[in-house]
């Protein structure tokens, strides 16, 4: 087995790129679930973001506008889920699955004229001296801005939930919406804000796929990335840093196994591909054996103000 053709520097660099879309989607979904709402429509929101981001980037020639439009479009789509589940009290699981189907259909409709087109892609950020550091520079400091934005977002969400009053209120809403309501907090409004945030993040993740990682528009191109994002939230037991670890693990294993194969290593491919899922199951077993699974207590339960 000769692994010398794998360049660890390039490997780490590709892992960072391949983890970014699921990281963005997962951190958004984590906030949504922290507020007590289970939105299973991540896949639909991601692919809507992918197509809208691509279309706007092609038309304006500026990927930045693409990302912005993707975030807005997916947030708008997620608010339709918000209205249905928060005001009309529809079942969150069914509505979320419906959102996925709507997103897939809508995206292929919007995307028809854009098949086979090329988009302007994000330039690599020039971090000056940092990028010139041997090894580390190429590994960590020569990516496009979204890679760092995703990591900054994780830090931001972590700080928001841990240190701010608003973060405390959001968590309270997720743990016990009745108590939060009794204290005078607007449960529905808080949840709608969280849902919109989650939608925007999923949209950014989708746009990252179509504008940077692939980069092109193909129907159905998310191919299950949204579901992986959902799994990562559970894997992370609803903690921001673990979401980042989970996303890099999932992204890392995919890229690593492809690289091992390309280098001619004789690896059990099927086992490697399944390993993130196996780890997720193990983590679930461990946390449930410890008796505390970390899920917000009101997750997925409908809220109706009684007074």
């Amino acid at each position, binding site marked *: 087995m000769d692994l010398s053709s794998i*360049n660890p520097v390039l490997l780490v660099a590709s892992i960072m790129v391949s983890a970014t879309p699921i990281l963005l989607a997962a951190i958004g979904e984590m906030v949504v679930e922290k507020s007590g709402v289970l939105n299973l429509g991540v896949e639909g929101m991601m692919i809507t973001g992918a197509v809208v981001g691509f279309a706007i980037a092609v038309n304006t020639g500026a990927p930045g506008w693409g990302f912005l439009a993707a975030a807005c479009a997916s947030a708008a789509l997620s608010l339709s889920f918000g209205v249905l589940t928060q005001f009309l009290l529809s079942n969150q699981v069914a509505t979320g699955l419906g959102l996925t189907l709507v997103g897939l259909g809508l995206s292929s409709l919007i995307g*028809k004229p854009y098949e086979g087109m*090329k988009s302007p892609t994000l330039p690599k950020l020039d971090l000056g001296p940092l990028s010139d550091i041997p090894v580390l520079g190429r590994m960590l400091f020569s990516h496009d801005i979204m890679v760092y934005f995703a990591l900054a977002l994780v830090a931001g969400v972590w700080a928001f939930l841990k240190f701010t009053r608003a973060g405390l209120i959001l968590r309270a809403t997720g743990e016990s919406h009745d108590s939060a309501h009794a204290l005078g907090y607007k449960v529905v409004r808080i949840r709608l804000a969280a849902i919109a945030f989650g939608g925007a993040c999923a949209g950014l993740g989708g746009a990252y796929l179509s504008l940077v990682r*692939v980069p092109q528009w193909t129907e*159905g191109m998310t191919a299950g990335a949204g579901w992986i994002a959902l799994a990562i939230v559970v894997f992370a037991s609803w903690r921001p840093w673990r979401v980042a670890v989970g996303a890099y693990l999932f992204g890392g294993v995919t890229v690593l196994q*492809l690289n091992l194969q*390309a280098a001619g290593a004789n690896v059990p491919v*099927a086992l490697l591909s399944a390993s993130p899922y196996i780890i997720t199951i193990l983590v679930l077993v461990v946390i449930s054996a410890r008796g505390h699974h970390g899920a917000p207590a009101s997750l997925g339960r409908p809220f109706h103000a009684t007074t």
Partner: protein
Amino acid sequence: MHRRTLLASAALALTLGQAAAAQDVTAGFIYVGPVGDGGWTYEHDQGRLAVEEHFGDQVKTIYQESVPEGADAERAITQMALSGADIIFTTSFGYMDPTIAVAEKFPDVKFEHATGYKRADNVSIYSARFYEGRAIQGHIAGSMTETNKIGYIASFPIPEVIRGINSAYLHAKKVNPDVEFSIVWAYTWFDPSKEADAARALIENGADVILQHTDSTAPQAAAQEAGDVITFGQASDMYDYAPLPRVSSIIDDWAPYYIERVQAVIDGTWESTDTWDGIGPGMVGIGEITDAVPEDVKAEALAMKEAIASGEYHPFTGPINKADGSVWLEEGEVADDGTLLGMDFYVEGIDAEIPN
């Protein structure tokens, strides 16, 4: 009230009558990816559209896209049979057992399974000799590579894919004895991000030619981004990526076959058959070879295409040894279809193992 019922039922009878008269036959299609994948499923859907165009109102077509292979496929095929399809085309290898299972339950419905090997009284099989196109790709790839490393994105370890790898390898080796193949198994037919990652991994490991046996155009985009890498369109022309990185392609043309089979259902002459056509009958097409390919290589490739089409040359002509060193074909011997259909070994020189 009576009058209203009467009117309603009259209207109903009228529409039903029209429907029955206008559409004699319903043809159903089960796709493994979305119709907009730009590759495999796209070409099958072009075939479906050709059926609609050819028969007009006489034939109604229905399809379901992105149907996973395996157990869920059985549900989708059953659903289609229940909704009144007279003939159902299941267009991926993994639908083989589900197709046979559903066909048993619906003896009056005709089934056509692509790229498999199991038949029944109401199940035909059809496929194209993609390996003929792979031979031409291998020739161009072997002639043009500078790093002598050719990357191959494979989907699942099934005979069809292994045949393609062997055919491309033999012909690359013939023009360039130093050539090496790196094979990556993606275990998916359609996942653009994974396909792009696979292409990038191969390029980072030194490959300057990428052959793909997956369905999306993502590897083309990844190769274009990397620069100095050539690719080939798979299943569809993928001409959006010409003249570079895409220098040629294998195009599947299912339309004539689909029209012929639907016609047979209309005429009541449909029988279970086994069709395996290649470049000669036109089921496999070779997309335009771009100017990025040197003139002499292009001429050789076209000559090989002619020879294969006329039956003068078979891509698997001995002497060929298996990877374990044993003799497969003697000098001048030509592979028989049975061995090709069940191919589960690499030819000598490919330094890898087939995952099981």
